């Protein structure tokens, strides 16, 4: 089973990297960009085929390691 965990910065947390990318896009002449926030995507291969237990495993992974919940939110998708 394949899954994806997406980790993004909480709103209000300053993202200097996103700001730098936003500036770079503007200087490249890519128009219509309002703002950019950078995040992370984890593509995960899971053992087993039970969706409910997969979600529990992914939640544990996100809470324990993949996201720092002080500054980040995460989203789990079983694909």
């Amino acid at each position: 089973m394949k899954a994806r965990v997406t980790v993004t910065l909480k709103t209000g947390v300053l993202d200097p990297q996103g700001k730098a990318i936003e500036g770079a896009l503007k200087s490249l002449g890519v128009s219509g960009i309002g703002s950019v926030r950078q995040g992370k995507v984890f593509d995960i291969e899971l053992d087993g085929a039970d969706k409910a237990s997969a979600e529990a495993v992914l939640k544990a992974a996100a809470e324990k390691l993949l996201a720092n919940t002080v500054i980040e939110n995460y989203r789990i998708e079983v694909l």
Partner: protein
Amino acid sequence: MKSAVLVFPGINRERDMARTLKLVSGVEPAMVWHADTELPAGTDLVVVPGGFSYGDYLRCGAIAARAPIMDAVRAHAAKGGLVLGVCNGFQILCESGLLPGVLMRNSKLKFICHDVHLRVERSDTPFTRGYNAGQVIRVPVAHGEGNYVADDETIKAIESEGRVIFRYCAADGTLGDPYNVNGAINAIAGIVNEGGNVAGMMPHPENHVESIIGSTDGRGLFAGLVAQFGKAA
């Protein structure tokens, strides 16, 4: 003072730290491997040194914070034992939950490696008793992610409880944006936990302990720790 210096893959400041601890306390620290599950018996002080544990993969300090030895460090801290994290060590202590907040990318996005001035905010902690409150010291920084961030509530708590021990400042102690090298909230360079026994700081006091280097301003931190244990090793 019996100290233990934690060693993770990718750490590179552990020898500087061990050398300073030996120099100031007279006792060779134990080097403790990350996969160990116990600290040496009778450890007074645990030091988490600087470097790039696990290549800063995922987030700075995130993987080291989950290493087996960290359970022993948590137990040591829970009993009131002293823990000091410097640079990557500060990041590891934040990731491990021993200290609040997180160290984000420097606001100007550059790795900074030069001397900074720090204002010692209080002298009544084991980590700052070697200084006077309000004293300014000069020590180096070397980091790309030292921008201290926490939510408003946490900052309010840290500030109202006087848990900021060092702030970036000018040579005369003035605070201001030009001196806040990484953009940290309230120019925070170092904090202690609620119990006052766990400290984290981005700058490297261990690198300014000998006059041949040009400054001995970092020595007070270690001398204070030694004094805390009555100089009896």
